[in-house]
Structure formats: C-alpha cells, structure tokens
C-alpha cells in the first residue's frame, strides 16, 4: 500500500490550542508537527502520552492517538503501551513538575529500563498551570507565590539526573530554535530505547525571560558535536562517554558562560521491550492451558 506523504498540517488536530499567547509551547508544537512527517510513520501508529501541567495538553493538539493522563504517571502508562505494542512510536510529553517532582520515580525507572519511549521534558522552571509556584528546577532564591522569601530548594539538573539513571539517550534543545530542536528530535526518534530530551521553554506569564541569554541571542547558542571540542571549554565531546556527558551537563550559563545544546549521550543498549519479547519468543512450554490446570498431583473421583 502506498503511503500518502504527510505534511505538518496532517498532524494538527481540530482542537483549538489553549496555551497562553506567547507561550514557548507553541513553538515546540510547531516543531514537533513539522518533524513528524519526516518519521515516515503513519499517524495511527504514533501515540503521545502526557501527565498533568501546561505541557500535558500537548496530545490534544496532535492528530495521532493520544492520552492526557494523570500527574507524573505518563512514563508508567507509556511503558505498558510500548511493551505490549512494539509496533507503535510512543512519545511522552511532560514538564519539570510532572517529570521531576510527582513523577520522578517513573522517569528514572523508565530511563534505566530503556523502554522504547521518547520523553520530551518541557522545562520552564515553574509551575504554570497552578499559577506560578517554584518547581524542582527553579533556582535557589526564586521568589514565587509559594516562596515569598525565595526558594531554599536546591534544583535538579534534569540531564545529570537522566544520566545518573542510566539513560541511553540524553539531549537538550530550546523551544524557539526550530532547526536545533528538530535535529535533536530526529536523533531521539532514531534511538532504540528511552530518549530524554529536555526542552528549555519560556513561560511568559510566570517565569518570563528565564532563558533569554540564548533565546534572544542566537550567537550565544552552543551546539554539541561528537568528536569536537565544545567552545573553548577544553572538553572534546564524546556521546558514548559517560564522564564527558556528565561534565557537559554540569555547565551553566551563570557559572561557565556556556550552555550546551544538542545530544549529550547516545549509546546502544537493548531496549526493555525487545528483551521482554525475546523472553516470550524463547519461552519453553506449549501454551496448553488444559495441561497447565491439570499439572501436578491429580486424582480422579467417580
């Protein structure tokens, strides 16, 4: 059967997009919809699963299968789907609160298992949907509705956390950087196993300007290239080397004046779903239920 060539418009659902005007999510949605045709996968074989939060509305706007689930649980739900349906392309859309606070446990376990799901973590460093409380990625001292004297929480570094959890693919992109984001999506989609993509996303209502240093200044964006030195850091990038990826993940604009974008780590490892399937394929036994219930010591009456 010849597949009709799909275009960006084919991935737009009939639902009105309801993010705040000016939200970084619009740019990410456009980039993802623009990238989808390139996958070459029919729409019915693509599923977007989300949790709760602004980012979690994402599936409603994609003309694919989708589920807007519950807070933090999307990686768990996606795991059940991916393990039982290896024929599907399963994407998780999450935010910093959803993925790193209430759903932190599910995130790290999905990554360590290497379930074949692609996780897009929209990091705006704030709770937007609940109107502006600090998140697990907000910096210390952040003044918000729930931290009038400034936050005393030390923030998570999402990439370092993912690396520590044993992720086989870790990358970072910027909402309005369509070429950079698309390049990362392409690599994530091609990766067999779990992929974590952190997307810096501006919340123009509750945390406006958080990433202005690279959003406003294209020249300030530094991209990782495998085998090349990053800027003048002295670090030669190696996507297969854990220590390099971890060192690069520590760099910050404030301390180092450089914040890498692109793929930090990409290594091959058997995906969870493949390993599960292999055990089913190699299972001993006949699958004869009558034999199973009749096994062991039996006796006859009458």
């Amino acid at each position, binding site marked *: 059967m010849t597949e009709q060539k799909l275009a960006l418009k084919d991935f737009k659902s009939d639902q009105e997009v309801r993010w705040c005007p000016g939200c970084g999510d619009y740019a990410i949605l456009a980039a993802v919809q623009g990238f989808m045709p390139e996958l070459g996968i029919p729409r*019915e074989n693509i599923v977007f699963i989300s949790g709760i939060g602004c980012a979690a509305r994402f599936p*409603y706007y994609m003309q694919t299968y989708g589920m807007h689930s*519950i807070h933090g649980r999307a990686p*768990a739900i996606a795991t*059940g789907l991916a393990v039982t349906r290896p024929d599907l392309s399963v994407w998780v859309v999450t935010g910093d609160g959803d993925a790193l606070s209430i759903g932190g446990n599910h995130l790290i376990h999905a990554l360590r298992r290497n379930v074949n799901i692609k996780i897009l973590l929209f990091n705006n460093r704030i709770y937007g949907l609940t109107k502006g409380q600090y998140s697990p990625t907000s910096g210390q001292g952040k003044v918000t509705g729930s931290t009038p004297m400034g936050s005393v929480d030390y923030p998570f570094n999402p990439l370092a956390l993912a690396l520590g959890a044993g992720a086989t693919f870790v990358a970072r992109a910027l909402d309005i950087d369509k070429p950079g984001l698309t390049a990362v999506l392409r690599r994530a989609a091609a990766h067999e196993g779990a992929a974590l993509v952190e997307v810096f996303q501006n919340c123009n209502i509750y945390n406006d300007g958080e990433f202005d240093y690279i959003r406003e200044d294209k020249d300030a964006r530094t991209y990782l290239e495998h085998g090349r030195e990053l800027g003048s850091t002295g670090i030669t990038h190696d996507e297969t080397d854990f220590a390099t990826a971890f060192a690069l993940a520590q760099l910050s604009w404030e301390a180092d004046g450089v914040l890498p974008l692109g793929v930090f780590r990409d290594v091959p490892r058997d995906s969870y779903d493949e390993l599960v399937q292999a055990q*089913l394929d190699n299972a001993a036994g006949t699958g004869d239920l009558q034999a199973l219930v009749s*096994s062991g010591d039996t*006796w006859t009456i*009458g």
Partner: protein
Amino acid sequence: MAKPVEQLDSVVIRFAGDSGDGMQLTGGRFTSETALSGNDLATFPDFPAEIRAPAGSLPGVSGFQLHFADHDILTPGDRPDVLVAMNPAALKTNLRDLPKGGTLIVDTDAFTDRNLKKAGYESSPLDDGSLADYQLHAVPLTSLTVGALKDIDGVTAREAERAKNMFALGLMSWLYGRETESTTTFIERKFAARPEIAAANLKAFSTGYHFGETSEAFAVQYEVKPATLPPGRYRQVTGNTALSWGLVAASKLSGLGLFLGAYPITPASSILEELARQKAFGVRTFQAEDEIAAVGAALGASFGGSLGVTTSAGPGVVLKSETVGLAVTLELPLVIVDVQRAGPSTGMPTKPEQADLLMVLHGRNGESPVPVLAAATPGDCFYAAIEAARVALAYRTPVYLLSDAYLANGTEPWLIPRIDELDPIEVEFARAGDGEFLPYARDPETLARPWAIPGTRGLEHRIGGLEKANETGNVSYDPENHDLMTQLRAQKVAGISVPAQEVDHQEGADVLVLSWGGTYGPVQAGVRRVRAIGGKVAHAHLRWLNPFPANLGDVLRSYDRVLVPELNAGQLLQLVRARFLVDAEGYNRVTGKPFRAGEIADAVQRLL
C-alpha cells in the same frame, strides 16, 4: 503386628513450629497425601510476616492447619484435634486452641531451658502436669532423626536436625494411613541436586513412619475414608494460583494478550510469580517501580488492546486509586485484584480481613463508579478472575476483584475445569466507518464506548482525565454535559448484567445469613451446624458487590431477620441497610483469622 484401626469421619491437624522448621512444607506434603487419599480437605497456612523471626520466639511460630474428612467440608476447622508442636513457643501459642482431650505431639528435644525461657515458661509443661488434660505423646523427634541419619555420608549434624519435620510427617502419615509415594517422589525431586540430603529426608520420613508402627506410644491407627465428591479429575489449588490461571484463561478466551503490572506485596506476590512463569501463553509481567506504575502500565497496555491487570493488597491498592479513577473516565478495561489483608496501614500482612470493600467502592475522588466482585473459595478465584475480565472487556471499565489472605494461601480439592467448556469472551475493536469517529458514542445495550486501539487507521483520537463531551470525547466544561456524563458512567456500571441472587433457602426459615467473599466456607459450615440441630436458617452468598443482583432487595425483605457476618466492622452491612432500608444486623470480627463455623452458628442461634 498391625495395630487396630479406628474409623474417623473427620480430623483437624495443626502443625506448629519455628518459622525455620519447615512447617508449611510439612503441612503442604500432608495435604497432598491426603488429597491423593481421596478425602475432602481445606487448609489454613498461618505464618508470620517476618521471614525468620528469632528462633524459638513466640512471634516466630508458623502454623499449618488441615481439615480432612470422608464428606464434603468447607473450612480448615475451628479447633485442631491433633496439635504437633515442634518447640515450646509453638506449644504456648497454639495450646489454647486444642480442646481438652485433644492429641498433642511434641518434640521433647526442643524443650530445653533456653527454649522454655524464650517461650515464657517457668517450668517445663512436659513435667509440671499442666498437660494432663491432653493425650500427650512426648517424642524425642530431633534425636531420633539425628540417630537415624548418622550413617548417611555428607550430611552435617545441622542438616540431619533439619530433617526432623520429615520424621514428624512420616509419623503423622502412619497415624492416618496416608498415601506416601507422592512424598517420596517429592523429596527425590526437590533434592535431586543433593542426593545425600534427599537420602536424609527419605530416611527421616520412613523412620517416622516406622516409629508409629512400632512405638508403644501409639496404640491405634486411624482411618478417614475417601469423601464422595462430584466425579471428575481433581488437584489441589491455592487461591492465588487459581486466580493466576483464571487470568490466563481470560486471555485465551478473549484472544487478548495478558499484561500484568505488579509490585511485590504480601499476600499477592505469588500471582506475579506464577504469571511470570507463563510466558508460553504470551503473558507479559512487569514488576514495576511502585504500585502506581504497576496499575499505570496495565492501563497503558489496555489502551493498546491488551487485557491489562494489576494485582496487589490493600496498602498497594490504596495507591492505585488515582489511576483507577482515570480508567473510569477513560472507560478502558482494567482488572484490579485486591488480595485483602488486615489493616489499616501495614496492619497484619499475612492475615485475612474483608475491610477493603468500602475503599474499592468509594475510595476515589468524584463520582467514580467501579464494579466489584469477590471470590468465595480458593478454587473459585479461577472463575472470579474470568468473570472480572469478562465484565471489564464488555463494559470497558475497571473492575475490582477481591480475594483475601485466607483464599490466597488456603487450598482445597479443585475439580479441574474443562477449558473447552468455558464460554468465549467476545471482544470487538472499533473499525473505521464512514462518518466521523465518536470515541464516546455508546453501545445502546451495554453503554460501553468503542475500544479504538492505536494502529487503527482513521480512528486517531485523544482521551484524557478532563471531562469529555458526550460522544466526541473532546474536553468539555459544559455544566449539563458533566451532569450527563456522570449519569452515563453510573448507569453503565449499574446496568452490568449480574446473575440473580441465589438463596440456599430452608423451608420455614425466617433468618437469612448474607455473606460475601472468602467467608463462604465458614459461614456455610456454620449454617449447616445450625440446621443439623434443627434450626431453620437460609444463606445467600454474594459474588457481586457492585452492582448488586437485581433481586437482592426482594431477597432481603423476604426474611424477618438478616445477619451479615463480615471480617470487618460492618461494611456490606452499611451498604445493604442504606440501599434496601432493611434492619440487617452484623456479626463482625477482625482477629486476623477466618471465621470459625462455631461462632457463626452461635451468632445465628441468637437470632432464632
């Protein structure tokens, strides 16, 4: 010379010892021998949650009670006729259940000063006359075992000592004329890798058997004739095994892959372990990072067209309620198994209770109706699991299946089901039609919505936890729509086709006993006792707790008095009083033990 044989119609034996003494194994083997001898039987393993509590201590005592008879029986027995106590702690914790005149077999070697002190005895009960009311057989089990094994090469003194449970098993096997070949085969198989240990255990078993034959301490041998059960082929089964196989059967009958998401928890873990072995049936088991992920993954699998199941006990089920609520609004099939144990909180992990009923009915935010059914006996767990899956799949709804710690580990002879005689489960996935796809259009009969699984071209759609517009499933905050959707979800569950309630009626009875779940055996046994002494009483046992059978109100109103015995503080009682305005009375106990038939009979007698 053969000893005289005395006929008995039923016997209750309790093996009690230290957690490390192998009492569960001993009880299990005696049960197998008994099953193969053709008796009806029921068992109650009763063990501590601690894997190895300090040796010789009171909390470390593990027990296994077995009731066998030449007729149809329903419970593991109220009190033992015979108590085998392997140490002072086992004697101390179990003697109160042994009626005066009961048979007591103790291992005298374990009655050391140290062990007596640990059990809190000031003086040895073997010497101080405190056991005068019992038929005491004081046998040096340990030294007899060690003595018998001294010539077997490669067996350490400690290993020889550990075989004492096989000596005890051999002795009991002789005393009740049990079939012994299955135990011999079992020992050979179990210790195939260590022939010297196999030899030691076989020797201990046969020495115990011959000790019974030759020792003057045992003057008679007993015989319990085979029971007359419905004809067919039987095996023993525990509730958790039957439940696991029921889920596999539901997968076969529906043609859907079975996906189990679970997190280890007592007393449900053995379902996960059993299903993990059934990969040849295409069963996928997922040991999740927590209870929430376990049910989440099961729901994800259901979304993809599998039979999604999660299994747990109360402290895990409470964590799943958020996802069950999502399944209610997504209207996807999901089976949630709650193997109930004593609560609240961690409670008593290995002890049965029925106190999760109101939680599974009501423990979610918003108006969130979920069907609930409960298994009645260990073997019934097989059929209850199929029934749960059948309703989940037909009505696209989460379904709670309640079992408990008593059913989970208890065994009974099980008439092996004929798989080809089970009704198929019809499942139809949605297919693209001509018009617009409406994910929340409903089947006029069941009110189920279409199950459109990813991979189906033309049916791409989004579902979620936000309220959905009727038919289109789009996000909706419309006031009237929310009211309508709430009613539709409630009507769907209320309209589930549930068989009419059957009543074990007795002519002239004006008292009805209404029970549910794992108390079936003791309650029915209690009812029979009342009838045996001329009392008139009816009994109805509920399988479906939500929805109730349509005729339940009429049934309840047709008796003057209704007694609702439950292992909780009165949960079904509250439901039937509220729903049917009947002045039902409760009999409620939460001791961590199943009901005794005797206490049910007493409670009924008080109403007659």
